[in-house]
């Protein structure tokens, strides 16, 4: 630390004193950012709790309009993508370039599968007039209308996060292919991984809350 000029890693930014400090700062930064994300989704979950309490039956009924098989498939897809993401980070820490690229690409492919499935789900909702707006089925009960409003808001914002995640992954995989990340410098991969896991976890909450209402027992 006392001889910063002689041993500075090329990826060490000027205002940090050493690589450990830089890695700790970026990891903590992502955690703090994820806290803000939790609060962001928190507002929607709050609305969810309030209205589910107000309209318990309408929500069960509306939930039955959703395709739980497709939702379940997407849940599996995301869980596997979290695994491949974790393996990508491990590969970076072990300086395994080929594995890094392979796992990152697999993660991205799974993320894309998720979005494609989501697209077909949305399309079906449009066809059944279950999308708020001018084509909304006016005969729907009030609570159900609110359910679909929140469904599209929550899954839509989640999907937007997935798209951003794919953008980040593209950046990471290009750099990984160039051999940027290794045991000394893998912060960006780790931070991107944290983000990816977070987006997966949000879905793991969304899936039962939206798709599985009143499905137990009966």
């Amino acid at each position, binding site marked *: 630390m006392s001889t910063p*000029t002689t041993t500075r890693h090329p990826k060490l*930014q*000027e*205002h*940090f*004193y050493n690589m450990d*400090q830089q890695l*700790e*700062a970026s990891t*903590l*930064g992502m955690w*703090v*950012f994820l*806290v*803000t*994300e939790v*609060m*962001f*989704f*928190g*507002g*929607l979950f*709050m*609305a969810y709790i*309030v*209205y589910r309490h*107000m*309209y318990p039956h309408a929500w069960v009924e509306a939930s039955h309009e959703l395709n739980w098989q497709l939702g379940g498939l997407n849940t599996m897809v995301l869980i596997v993508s979290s695994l491949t993401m974790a393996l990508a980070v491990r590969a970076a820490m072990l300086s395994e370039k080929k594995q890094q690229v392979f796992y990152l690409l697999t993660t991205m492919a799974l993320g894309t599968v998720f979005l494609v499935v989501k697209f077909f789900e949305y399309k079906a909702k449009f066809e059944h007039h279950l999308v*708020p*707006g*001018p084509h*909304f089925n006016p005969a729907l009960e*009030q*609570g159900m*209308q*609110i359910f679909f*409003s*929140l469904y*599209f*808001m929550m899954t839509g*914002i989640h999907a937007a996060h997935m798209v951003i995640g794919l953008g980040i992954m593209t950046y990471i995989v290009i750099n990984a292919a160039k051999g940027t990340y290794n045991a000394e410098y893998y912060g960006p991969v780790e931070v991107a991984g944290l983000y990816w896991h977070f987006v997966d976890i949000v879905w793991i909450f969304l899936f039962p809350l939206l798709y599985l209402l009143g499905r137990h027992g009966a």
Partner: protein
Amino acid sequence: MSNEASVHEQSYLGAPHGLASWLLTKDHKRIAILYLISITIFFAVGGTFAAMIRAELVTPQGDLLSSDLYNKVFTLHGVIMIFFFLIPSIPATLGNFLLPIMIGAKDLAFPRINLLSWYIYVIGATVTLAAVFNGGVDTGWTFYTPYSSMSSNTSVTTAALGVFITGFSSILTGFNFIVTLHRMRAPGMTWFRLPLFVWAQYATSLVMILGTPVVAITVLLVAAERALHLGIFDPKIGGDPVLFQHLFWFYSHPAVYIMILPAMGVVSELVAAMSRKQIFGYSFVAFSSLAIAIIGFLVWGHHLFVSSQSIYAGLVFSIITMMVAVPSAVKTFNWTATMYKGAISWESPTFWIFGFMGLFLVGGLTGLFLGAMGLDIHLTDTYFVVAHFHYIMVGGGVMGFLGGLHFWWPKMTGKMYNETAGKIAAMLVFFGFNATFFPQFIVGYMGMPRRYHAYPPEFQFFNVLSSAGAVLLGIGYTMIVIYLIYSLIKGPKAPANPWGATGLEWKIPSPPITHNFSEMPVVTEEAYDYQHAPAPQRGVK
């Protein structure tokens, strides 16, 4: 290498040159200056709207502006002053400039994100201004549903998006400060050696990262209701418009602490420096900031005592509201005690402290009136509330900001301003402010509702007083802009430590070099160690 090093050893203001070097800078000090210029512009814009409000209210008939125009004017006054001036005011300018220096760091942890936050602020501001020119917005800065979502036919969606975008600049600032404080402190700079200004910034940052996302999603929902007919707050499909108020105030009450906590931090620094004495009860002042930030998240329902929320919820919010008054009282007593047996210099920063103390006392104490439920029923949505929050946000927040600006101006610019002008401005602002807002307490208790374009004639006397005071206030603020800009051109060069204050920022040249410290500082002393403080490098008048 040697060439690069020499750039970093120069004043941050001088090297490198050119507009591009400013617009692409990653230097926290330059970003602070960019913010300072931007918020000054918006303060002027918001102030112009305030002047229009006060001009209209001189007569009771509502004969200067049309009702629709008046409604837009007070909405824009609120939106601009809160989101584009008060919230970024201290954190993004003084905080950005001083926080890394005070803890002995070369920069914030994420310099690029810091610059990004300024650009996001500019984009949000541009979008909001687009709403202004596209017919304005008339919902009040609170955007209450269902008026905002169903009824108003003004540019609500655009304005809401502007606020949504700007929110992220605030989140990024808070996020940067938190990581910086945890990971970038110089050797020896323990948590309990941090200046209290830094503690206050830490508490503020917590509010920023926890609260702002909630208001972001809330205004996004309003925009979605208007654009996509979602209807989450629409009573016609069974939605609850009051839910909006809960979500909105969950952020917007703590947002008041974003405005006042940093000002409290400034005052803690100034009281100690101007008295040349250790702050009284360091840990109590530090922890009271955290207490305010945390308890402040649990009081939002006191905005809803008449909104049909459950009376038991009201009780809980009322008792917690009363509790949040205590840490503010603790701070005030500690500042007063710091002055006891101090060596108080009567220079202009001291005048701003006096102003802050006087106005913040009134602002804080009138909060008790509003926290007491039975009394709030009568007072809420009247001018009493308007007066109360102006005493906190302008009396407290802006006085603190200006005090800090006068105290650190020599450090930031390397120039001294005119002392006499500084004192006169402080007094003008103090008396002008009281003349403007004290009558509003009286007319509020008489029952004058806020956001009224026309009003019954018995309220006129107080409104005329208020408008007259606003003229004084306007002169005071204009004067500050003039003599500070003049100081940049003709002001004498500032020494490194004009006030003889402690703290790392006074150990480096004025203005600082690009990398703040040529060698990593090692901290060995407690904060506010005035027993061993260096002498001021300028005389006491």
